[in-house]
């Protein structure tokens, strides 16, 4: 996994939040849209993805999960990922919210929202950011199973 260290020239708007408590993804997106897009009438498409904690993984019942991260690198990497997306598609605005700490089933893990004039850029950009986040951003999940033991999730699979 290599990453580009190029300084970017784009000034594309974005907000990246790492949150330690339960968050409401749709309310967070609505609040951010109100705050950053009010009065704008040039975006036609918003694509959004919410990752939610399930109560099962790899055949086992999961009680809770603890998300660890590398704070200094997380925001740097997420900003780079947004830069990459903005260099590929005409994206107007991006919001990323990622949860850390202990989390329970049905709570939100991650939100990625992308605004653009056109739907292809919004869909492609949102999915690109989500996929890159899964494979590049320094987060790690440790599961506590109903059966009593704990285990680190070994690796994110494509599209799972």
């Amino acid at each position, binding site marked *: *996994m*290599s*990453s580009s*260290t190029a300084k970017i020239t784009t000034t594309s708007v974005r907000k990246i939040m790492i949150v330690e408590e339960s968050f409401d993804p749709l309310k967070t997106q609505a609040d951010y849209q109100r705050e950053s897009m009010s009065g704008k009438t040039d975006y036609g498409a918003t694509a959004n993805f919410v*990752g939610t904690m399930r109560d099962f993984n790899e055949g086992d019942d999961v009680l809770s999960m603890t*998300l*660890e*991260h*590398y704070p*200094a*690198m997380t925001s*740097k*990497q997420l900003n780079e990922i947004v830069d990459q997306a903005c260099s590929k598609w005409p994206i107007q605005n991006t919001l990323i919210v*990622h949860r850390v700490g202990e989390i329970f089933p049905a709570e939100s*893990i*991650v939100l990625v929202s992308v605004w653009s004039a056109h739907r292809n850029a919004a869909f492609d950009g949102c999915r690109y950011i*989500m996929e890159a*986040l*899964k*494979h*590049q*951003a*320094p*987060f*790690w*999940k*440790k599961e506590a199973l109903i059966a009593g033991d704990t285990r*680190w*999730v*070994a*690796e*994110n699979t494509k599209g799972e």
Partner: protein
Amino acid sequence: MTIKVLYFASLREEIGRANDQFQFSEEQLLSLDVVQLWQHATGKTSFPEQLLVAINQEYKDQKALINDGDEVAFFPPVTGG
């Protein structure tokens, strides 16, 4: 010449600590690469295939050289999102 080393997730638990700080001479640092730092820090002779490394919060490969003041992080595959 100070190098800070960080460990995360399962690796942190395996090693039993979250970080180290090492002093190297100017001469040692001339050719110190990631693999050598890993061996020095952990006492392990092999470099795990899936191990990821970042220098100053940027991904690097295992041949990258270490410079004075670098923050070097070792960690397993990431599993966020």
